[in-house]
């Protein structure tokens, strides 16, 4: 019960005028930054960090976390309206958010994203409140083999879902993983896969380059060619009544995805190596797997939007756990938050909860408030975002191209990467014409930098014995499930042949 009184104090602290104002400003700024392709929470947090020296440390971290939250909500906006994931955390939202928008249900997609994000964030905050000490120990017991097994599971959910062309899906995943390996080999420090000896590749290929190329340029070319340039989106008038009916529909059709996403997102988020991105992608895969209508996914399923959106908010909250309790940042954004805390003289770790109770609980209390403020502002701005879609396609298209290129440069600061965006865009267009799924490649390029080091570390731990993935108590079951999922299409195929014979 002491816990609840700490929490109550924390919530009251975050409702103080200065803190509340900072939450509102932070969430709004985060929303707009997250909505911009190429910019993410990390940009907002990094730029605004110096401003926080003007306020007490407790208020400062509340402000930065509010930006972080706002950006998580914001990422969905460009995914749905422009079809370009605002950040890696919003990639899975494009799979079903964009088709919904093209069918004229953009406001439903955005409302679903907002509500799912709210539920995901709240669930995670509650879990964080209740289970912080226990979770810290669990998170520590996840070593490289466990994390690699988890990555294998993530890929397996994409392969084993059936329906898509399996060789082409596998090609896509392997391509993404190899592209992730370009640059410097982190373990030996030597340059690797410097394609065609072009020096620009030494910096590696960033996720955002592939994502903007595929979803910005490639997607636009595809849409234009498919619709013969006549893209019309029917837009119902945005009224308060429309918003309410959309909310009801979102709740009715999206609750399963929201539950799955909140649970998986939080769990993945608390692991030091993984965060909102793998969390949202895995939630999508699992939600599709558990769904009674998997064929709807990719064509505008409401669960397909609610699962990744609730997961990415849930995971971002979860990612605070290793940062606060272990001092291990789970993502670039939490790394900056950690840096800020250190500058302000706050040392993360178990002692933080004892020595700086007011700070920690003020922060956790602010998550609840940020969540509420974020969903209100998000919902209020939805008419604005939908209005953007009413622009004629011949104006929207060049805007998207411009935002893709300028956003791409903002993220990578390299002309070489801009050329890569164009190349990926054209290649994505061609591959898509022949039904090569590109989402697995995007998933792979994000998870590759986590999967490869953990594989190598695991093999090093076991001196080359691959059985380590099966013999460890946590890694074992995860690996087995992953392998079953990968083999599922082959088993289905054999069963079909046998029944025909």
């Amino acid at each position, binding site marked *: 019960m002491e816990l609840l009184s700490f929490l109550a104090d924390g919530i009251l602290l975050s409702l103080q005028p200065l803190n509340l104002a900072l939450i509102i400003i932070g969430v709004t700024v985060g929303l707009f930054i997250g909505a911009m392709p190429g910019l993410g929470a990390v940009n907002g947090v990094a730029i605004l960090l110096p401003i926080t020296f003007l306020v007490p440390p407790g208020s400062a971290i509340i402000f930065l976390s509010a930006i972080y939250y706002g950006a998580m909500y914001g990422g969905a906006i460009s995914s749905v309206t422009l079809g370009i994931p605002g950040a890696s955390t919003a990639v899975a939202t494009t799979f079903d958010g964009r088709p919904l928008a093209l069918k004229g249900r953009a406001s439903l997609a955005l409302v679903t994203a907002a509500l799912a994000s709210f539920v995901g964030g709240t669930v995670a905050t509650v879990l964080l409140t209740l289970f912080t000490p226990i979770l810290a120990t669990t998170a520590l017991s996840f070593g490289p083999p466990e994390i690699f097994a988890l990555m294998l599971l993530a890929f397996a959910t994409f392969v084993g879902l059936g329906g898509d062309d399996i060789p082409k899906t596998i090609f896509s995943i*392997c391509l993404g993983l190899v592209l992730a390996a370009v640059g410097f080999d982190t373990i030996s420090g030597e340059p690797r896969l410097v394609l065609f000896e072009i020096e620009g590749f030494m910096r590696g290929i960033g996720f955002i380059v592939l994502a903007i190329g595929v979803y910005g340029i490639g997607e636009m070319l595809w849409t234009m060619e498919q619709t013969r340039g006549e893209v019309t989106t029917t837009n119902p008038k945005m009224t308060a009544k429309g918003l309410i009916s959309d909310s009801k529909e979102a709740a009715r059709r999206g609750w399963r995805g929201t539950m799955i996403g909140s649970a998986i997102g939080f769990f993945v988020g608390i692991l030091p190596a993984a965060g909102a991105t793998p969390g949202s992608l895995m939630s999508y895969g699992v939600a599709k797997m558990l769904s009674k209508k998997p064929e709807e996914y990719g064509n505008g399923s409401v669960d397909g939007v609610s699962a990744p959106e609730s997961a990415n908010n849930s995971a971002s909250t979860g990612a605070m756990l290793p940062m606060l309790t272990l001092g291990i940042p789970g993502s670039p954004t939490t790394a900056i938050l950690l840096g800020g805390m250190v500058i302000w003289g706050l040392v993360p770790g178990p002692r933080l909860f004892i020595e700086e109770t007011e700070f920690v609980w003020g922060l956790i209390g602010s998550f609840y408030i940020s969540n509420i403020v974020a969903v209100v502002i998000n919902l209020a701005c939805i008419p604005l975002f939908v209005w953007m879609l009413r622009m004629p396609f*011949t104006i929207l298209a060049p805007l998207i191209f411009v935002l893709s290129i300028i956003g791409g*440069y903002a993220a990578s600061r390299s002309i070489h990467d801009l050329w890569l965006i164009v190349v990926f865009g054209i290649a994505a267009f061609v591959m898509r014409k022949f039904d090569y799924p590109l989402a697995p490649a995007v998933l792979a390029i994000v998870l590759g930098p986590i999967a490869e080091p953990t*594989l190598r570390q695991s093999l090093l731990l076991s001196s*080359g014995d691959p059985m380590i993935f099966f013999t460890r108590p946590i890694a074992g079951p995860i690996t087995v499930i992953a392998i079953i999922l990968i083999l599922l299409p082959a088993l289905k195929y054999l069963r079909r042949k046998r029944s025909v014979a």
Partner: protein
Amino acid sequence: MRQGEISLVGVLALFSMYLMWKSTELSVGYISGQGPGGGFWPFWLALGMLLSCLASAWKWWRAKSPFSQSDEPFLDSFGWRTLLHVGGSVVVFVALISVVSMYGAVAIFLFYYLRFLGRHSWFLTLTMSLLLPAGLFFFFEGVMLISMPQGMSFTQPVFDLLYDIIY
């Protein structure tokens, strides 16, 4: 489409073999005491890519995939025109960034697209081509403190003026 699919599979297979070869620059096997070598991960993955290409080629040969049964052209004339005009304009856009600065390239790209591809009025074209780069400048350079390429030296006076405004 039939020829298109097998051509694409061929190109991707060649690319996979290139990647396999490139991976061997670092050790591909297991180095005792250090774990798998640097080339291990990409090599076996590139092999996976090659095997998937072979599987796709096999499917094409057995005429199982929808594309191998289709006689339609890869792109009709509208498609080629789209690829050329739109894709081409994006390529030129990126090429111009190093010459006339990011904002200059945005202006020229918007002008070309809105006027010639979108057939919009001069008023709309000119307004957007001038206002949007200006807006982006103030957002990226002024607010986010992210500087964009300035192109060649002749753009310097313009930037000096703009920097004077924001700082």
